[in-house]
């Protein structure tokens, strides 16, 4: 069996284990689920290392490789957060997300092709790694927002009964977790844009030329920038805390949509033909 399929299966097993953990709440299952998830992540990482050795270049020269890398970064961010905060259900959905990304990757052309001259740059390395870590964090924040929005209607009255179990964050406070994830990812996104701009200057002579990919990465950045700033204006606009948290959760869902559109959806734009770096044209 190929390593990529093994990774896929490991992610599926991990998500099942996480659901089991939710049902039985046993410490043993908790460690098993985390263990399987880490194993899946290791498979994912091993594939990337093997691929870069085989291809002779970093494993993100085309859409296929980038997607596998994206899945790996999403898993990594999840693991980091699971260690910091004692998560619950997110693990199941995080592994499903990683699995979906991998599944989408397997639909792409998996052949190894020589990379074009413009991609041979250390800036590219920094650019892609920072970007994908940012995307991974936004992916997990998408999940926390989904859970928050799903739980919110049922938890209206229980607010006063909230009990904190050790370090564990209760579901209703997932909006705070979302914020922490964005706070984790946003610096990476910023570094990603800046390294990308410096690389573009080196390769194409201009750090910013309003290429559709550049413009959409700016849109992504602005979307999360708006997310970070709006909490400051809600009190002044007399919007209640409960309402504002729902608005922000929705905003994160939209923003993650923008992230994915920037990453893989740009081929649908009429201006795509002008772009220097949309996947597929390579």
């Amino acid at each position: 069996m190929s390593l990529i399929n093994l990774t896929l299966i490991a992610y599926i097993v991990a998500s099942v284990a996480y659901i089991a953990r939710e049902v039985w709440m046993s410490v043993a299952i908790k460690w098993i689920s985390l263990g399987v998830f880490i194993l899946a992540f290791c498979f994912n990482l091993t594939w990337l290392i093997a691929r870069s050795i085989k291809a002779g270049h970093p494993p993100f020269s085309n859409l296929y490789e980038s997607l596998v890398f994206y899945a790996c970064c999403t898993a990594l961010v999840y693991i980091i957060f699971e260690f910091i905060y004692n998560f619950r259900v997110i693990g199941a959905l995080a592994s499903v997300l990683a699995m979906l990304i991998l599944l989408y990757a397997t639909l792409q052309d998996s052949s190894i092709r020589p990379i074009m001259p413009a991609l041979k740059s250390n800036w590219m390395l920094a650019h892609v790694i920072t970007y994908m870590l940012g995307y991974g964090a936004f992916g997990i924040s998408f999940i926390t927002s989904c859970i928050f929005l799903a739980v919110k209607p049922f938890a209206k009255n229980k607010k006063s009964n909230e009990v904190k179990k050790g370090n564990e964050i209760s579901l209703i406070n997932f909006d705070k977790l979302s914020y922490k994830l964005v706070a984790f990812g946003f610096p990476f996104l910023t570094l990603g844009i800046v390294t990308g701009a410096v690389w573009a200057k080196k390769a194409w002579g201009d750090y910013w030329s309003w290429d559709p990919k550049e413009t959409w990465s700016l849109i992504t950045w602005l979307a999360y920038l708006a997310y970070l700033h709006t909490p400051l204006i809600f009190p002044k606009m007399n919007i209640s805390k409960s309402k504002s948290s729902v608005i922000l959760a929705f905003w994160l869902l939209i923003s993650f949509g923008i992230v994915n559109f920037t990453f893989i959806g740009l081929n649908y734009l009429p201006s795509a033909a002008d772009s220097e770096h949309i996947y597929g044209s390579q």
Partner: protein
Amino acid sequence: MKNGKQNQPHMTTEAKDDRKKTNQISINQSERRGSNKVWDFFCSVKLAVVIILVLVVACILGTVILQGRTLDEYTAKYGYTLATFFRITELNNVFYSYWFAFLLVLLCANLICCTIKRWRNTFMQTGFILTHLSLVLILVGGVVKFQLGVKGGVNVYEGKSVNYFLTQLINRQGKLDYVKKDLPFSIALDDFILEKNEPKFQLVSYIKNKDRQKILEVKVGQRQRVPGSGYKVTIKDYIPDAELKQEPVNTSDTPDNPAIFVKLLGSDKVTAEGWLLAHDRNYYEDKKQNLRVEYIWLSSQEELEKTVSSIETAHPKISVMISEQGLSQDYPMELNKTFKLEGTNYSIRMLQYVLNYGDRRPLAEQPTDNPSVQVEINGPDGSETRWVFEKFPDWDKMHPAKYKNLKITCSGIASGHMARNTIRLFQSPEGKQVMVSIKDNHITSAIPWELEKKYTIADLNHQIMVSNYFPSFDFKKEVIKKSDEVGMPAIFVEVEGPSGKVDDWLFSNQQYATWYTDNNLALVYESTGDSIKHFTSKLRIEENGQTVAEKTIRVNDPLTYKGYVIYQSSYDPEAGSFSGLQVVKDPGIPIVYAGFGALCFGVVFIFYIKPFLRKKSNKEVEE
């Protein structure tokens, strides 16, 4: 915008207290400024959020609507009204429009006011100040680039030099315009080198009933399943530089595939020789001599005797079939005559015929490689013109046609088009062998022929000899290794499928796919195509006739001289004789890069360093 203590929307109690304090401070400040409403407006986070959202919308419009095209292109794509609307609202040039510039100026003002308002000399505020001012720096740098910078391109031929470059712009009339800009020096291209990657090869599988294409691994000895199917493929051998040697052999004495080896001799020297196969390529043509040699195998002696005396073995004709009506009709080839199809509404007419489709030479010079007739069909839905190919009777089945129900085939065009001199070598299973010479459509002789005997062709000063006869002709394929370097690689592949194991050599230069016996799995071993590894230009900068700078530039590694940066951007795709250079001058770069640096450090400070420091100080307080 973000205050040092305010960037977290969900605050701990301590943070809340802090916020009360800061609010008080800002209230005090605004009181001091005499509650200036304009000042408050420019300081507000609300304005910032509004600007961010408007920028998002503007950016989306700027990618959904094509940017910077000529007026004609807009009119063609969106229609006149919308094109005019775009032009007036500058939606055709969003990022360089006045309203977008206004937005950015507003953003700048907002950033500066906000920074001033919340400025407090504390270490914790470093991130806030850096991020907000960095954006101002980047925008200012952008203005410098827009005002003082230039960007253009020029192509230089090897051994030549240029002292200008061209910039592109859309002029007021909405047309594309080039403006020539002089350089204060000249750029000489001493050498241009295009380096290609080593060719790479891949094995592609295709499953017809699933229309699925997958790349298989080329690893000798590994048995792999074709994804999404039951086929198993094993690569049994690999030769980096292979050559296929085909040796004709006779496999049995029963005439399954009769073939003769014919030699043509001119004054005892062989001028042409080769195998003629009765069931395959059964003729040889020499257009110069106007000679044609045919090898005709007949199933019995009786038939042979019947055929020998007639000149034409086949009359050129076309056959029309309409299967649902059970109609099948033959028509002799007569150009420009209309034939009505009995019992139908159809009529057909033959427009022209050729011996080699696509060949521009006159008919008499064409080899009979791909004889075809152009037919016009007139029916209930009007007329249709199509080419009918003698060798590809199913062509029309596979290609779109108006009257798909009409199947038209043709035959006898190749053999009907006779050379001045024709030699026919007849043979039958009983061993009867007759050579018939035809000149200008008349039989001049009919004699028995034997192996290894020379016969003179009348008038042509040539002799003909049949030197070998194989009743069951076949090729013995042999693949030999030419060298160890990657040249023309080949792999020996074994496929296991529903009809058992099959193996064959696949060559990387093969033009067609190799199909498995069930005609559902195809394999192609092919080159992944030429790809460029590097292209470099050896440039020399000359000023007043003296060389002042020299560098070999490549993508990602430009040359800088007097504020101009010269990039490798393209090359002549056909001859590789010129190098495409991009010339950029941007005095705003230091400002922008300072902004980039400050922005990066600022965000890292806000989201990583500050929370860390705060945690640490909280712990200390607790202790």
